[in-house]
């Protein structure tokens, strides 16, 4: 089983026994990544079929388009900045609410 994960017999028998644990975890991550890539491929296929069938059988006046560019897997700097701003606003709002509650209790 460990041979299928890329471990050599020498590593299994002669090296650190914890290598088996690390190989197992690496294999698990690899499977997870492959699963995610397969899902992404399915999404692209779904879009392609939808566009083809929609254009073939759909309205003459509306044409569907395939993705113009690949789906972004990473957030842009602008998206990160926007999320950070929202987090800060939410925290300040929560602080103000707690402060107002405390003020009311004091009165």
């Amino acid at each position, binding site marked *: 089983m460990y041979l299928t994960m890329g471990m050599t017999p020498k590593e299994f028998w002669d090296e650190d*026994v914890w290598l088996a*644990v690390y190989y197992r975890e690496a294999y698990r991550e690899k499977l997870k990544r492959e699963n995610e890539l397969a899902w992404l491929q399915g999404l692209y296929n779904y879009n392609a079929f939808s566009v083809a069938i929609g254009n073939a059988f759909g309205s003459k006046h509306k044409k569907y388009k395939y993705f113009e560019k690949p789906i972004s897997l990473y957030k842009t700097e602008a998206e990160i900045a926007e999320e950070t701003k929202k987090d800060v606003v939410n925290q300040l709002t929560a602080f103000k609410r707690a402060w107002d509650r405390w003020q009311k209790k004091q009165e």
Partner: protein
Amino acid sequence: MERVKPIVIALEDGTEYTLEFNRASVKTAENRGFNFNDIDSKLMNNLPLLFHFAFRMHHPTMTQRQTDQILFDELGGLTPEMIERLGQLYAQGYNTLINDDETKNSRVTVTM
């Protein structure tokens, strides 16, 4: 499951020995009749054996005579903590093969 650190023995002359087990040394111990479960009942036999096999991973050319000399003359025996650590190092060879968090898509099921 936490990783157990190997034992490092430093002698007066500056020589250092690292005591650890890999699967090959555990297999050798078993092939030579060592039974870990007998360690409490046959201490005089099994403790020097366990100590000797712990050298095999990093110092495979050490003979049992040499390891016995270190055990009895240099160290004067082992402390209970060292014996426990040796046991943990020995068991690590098995324990690291046990996958505690098997996924639900495992191909093998065991019914008892």
